[in-house]
């Protein structure tokens, strides 16, 4: 079920295009990855969703309704550039920020206490931000983003500045929020976390959306006839048997099993490969190589830049 969508969104700054006819659709209770190189237009799109800037044309919808200023209370936004008031007690500014999102003071305190307990930072309540390390500040910032229980959460590089233990804690909390009903838009350059967390992604490059879909489906779409074969036998014989028909991209020789990475071309099928190998080697395993999101990202962006 669609929870959020952007339809034909255009935005031009002075003479640079930030977004050109961008459409995205985010399902309810899913994690949507918003990917793209630096300067692609991701932040502009996020700011349009947050009603910080207005699109030149096109619209954004929340639960089927056109979004308005009143909806911003339902959004939690963690920008890439973090910041809190330097000379203000942590508890006080968390309450203030929650109130700005439309919470009552009473509810804000109640919810904040739950989160502070959960992150075991209750002792920081009366400290100034200046006294905390960067990672600690990130925790506070995360809490201020989610405390008003927004239906739509936007995280821009949420894991930057966290150590692996805290990054993992945060990952769990993000998944929990989704399971509790939140819909999440997640922007990052860390493709590992995209594979781990995202259900859907959209890849934006130079103001255009170039790829969109389910993560597994996209990775499958970008597979490029590359296979990994483990075998017992002599690499030289294998190499000679394949020459002229199948390209060997890589090979590893090992005591237990050798491995080659090959690419089909000239319309050769898997069976052709196996037939060529049977006389010279014992095949142990045969697997098509699925590209990582990192590969997909690079390939898709390079292809789109070539156009």
């Amino acid at each position, binding site marked *: 079920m669609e929870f959020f969508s952007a339809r034909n969104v255009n935005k031009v700054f002075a003479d640079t295009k930030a977004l050109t006819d961008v459409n995205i659709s985010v399902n309810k209770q899913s994690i949507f990855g918003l990917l793209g190189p630096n300067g692609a237009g991701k932040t502009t799109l996020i700011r349009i969703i947050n009603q910080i800037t207005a699109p030149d044309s096109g619209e954004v919808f929340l639960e089927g309704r056109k979004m308005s200023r009143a909806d911003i209370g*339902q959004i939690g936004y963690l920008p890439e550039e973090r910041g*809190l008031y330097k000379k203000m007690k942590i508890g006080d500014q968390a309450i203030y*920020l929650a109130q*700005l999102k439309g*919470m*009552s003071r009473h*509810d804000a305190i109640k*919810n904040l206490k*739950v989160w502070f307990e959960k992150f075991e930072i209750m002792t920081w309540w009366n400290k100034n931000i200046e006294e905390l390390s960067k990672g600690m500040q990130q925790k506070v910032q995360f809490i201020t983003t989610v405390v008003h229980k927004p239906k739509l959460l936007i995280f821009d590089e949420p894991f930057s500045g966290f150590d692996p233990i805290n990054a993992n804690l945060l990952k769990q909390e993000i998944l929990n929020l989704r399971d*509790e009903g939140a819909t999440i838009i997640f922007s990052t350059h860390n493709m590992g976390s995209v594979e781990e967390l995202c259900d859907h992604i959209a890849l934006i490059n130079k103001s255009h959306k170039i790829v969109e879909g389910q993560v597994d489906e996209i990775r499958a779409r970008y597979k490029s006839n590359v296979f990994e074969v483990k075998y017992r036998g002599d690499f030289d014989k294998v190499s000679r048997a394949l020459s002229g028909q199948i390209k060997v991209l890589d090979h590893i020789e090992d005591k237990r099993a050798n491995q080659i990475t090959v690419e089909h071309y000239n319309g050769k099928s898997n069976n052709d490969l196996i037939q060529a190998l049977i006389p010279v080697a014992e095949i142990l395993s045969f697997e098509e190589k699925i590209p990582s999101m990192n590969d997909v990202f690079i390939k898709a962006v390079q292809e789109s830049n070539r156009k």
Partner: protein
Amino acid sequence: MNDKSPDSHFPTSVFGLPTFLKMNKTLLILKQEYLKRVKKKSFIILTLLVPFLMAGMFALIIFLSINNDKKERNIAVYDESGLFLGEFGNEGYTKYTFIQKEQYTKLSSGLKETEFYGVLYIPGDIYTNNSAQLISEKQIPFEVNEQIERKLSRFIENDKKSKIIAESGIPDLGERLEATKTSISLKTLKISEGGEAKSSSSAMAFGASYAMGFIIYFFVFMYGAMVMRSVMEEKKSRIIEVIISSVKPFELMAGKIIGTALVGLTQVAIWVVLGIAVMFGVQSFFSPETAQQMGQSIMEGQQNMNPAAMQTVEPNKAMEILDMIGNLNLPFILFSFVFYFLFGYLLYSSLMGAVGAAVDNDEDSQQMVFPVTFPLILSIMVLFPIARNPEGPVAFWFSIIPFTSPVAMLARVPYGVPLWELLLSMFLLVLTTIGAIAAAAKIYRIGLLMYGKKVNIKELIKWLRYKN
């Protein structure tokens, strides 16, 4: 992966909250800005200290002026002419002791070991030469100098006078001459448009106009800069993106400007209350005994001058001053003050807020804020000429042009301003303020998320042309 049931941590009512329970966001920001500043130690210290510093200064001046005369000074008098023996009475804290020639010779070589403060030498030919000599090892205070001069000349004058009276053969000539003494006090009247004459004092109006112009300048500058710094702080700490994803930039700006204005008003209110309290305190500390003492020392000092005139003139002067303050048209001045203060502050704080939003480092802000505050600085520079000549062309133009009128018009108000000029000035100021707020809001909105760009006036004008 997750065993918690949905909503286990949250009250489900957050989004069901009726809108009337949601606090207006501008109000929230206003409250936040206000409390943040008012709770600051520096604010509390400054606010409490200033009136006490002022009171302390006044008290010190009064204290010194009283105690100055309390110092006992013993002056040795060597009267070569032999005319003044018995005529030199002690006056105030100054005592006179007549000495002989031998002692005088001894004293003129050094006063250190003696009880004398100074030695007065009255030469034998004082009648013709009109000069005497006072030797001391210290700087002789003006009052002592003046006292001795007065005593000497008064005696010789009276002596000469009585000789003439005796020669003339008119027995009551002394009294008749005394009766010719006249003291004219000039009462300046100003005819208002209604043809009603009111007494005015140029000094009073000058003081009032200068003070008010300066107060407006000071507050507009100080609190405008406060708004600017507050905007810059949010931009520099990057919290601004979170804030404007919660509130409209205009709501944020309005909350800041009004909140800061309330801080200023709070400060003024505290000063007024403390000022009144301190005034009463000082009064009750010094009076009635001290006041009497002060009065006495003044009277003693002027005893010989014109005792009868003294007693009658002083109360009249006081009444006159009160009368003049009353004639300053206080409600009108107060209204103008509040009006120009409010709009001057709104005009400059919105512009300075926009500057704070446009720049992202302190050096740039220094550079950008100068062209914005230049008219304000200019108006304080012409404040003196305006207060001196409130009807000249400088006064006229500066009090009509909106960017300088908050200071310049206030400097003219105590003298009285033609109604049409005042209304024109107010109208233009309101119009300009509205325009400035609209322009500032635009710059503010665009500038807040603009980082790493060197901003200049040309760039700002470009921003103003952006649609939406």
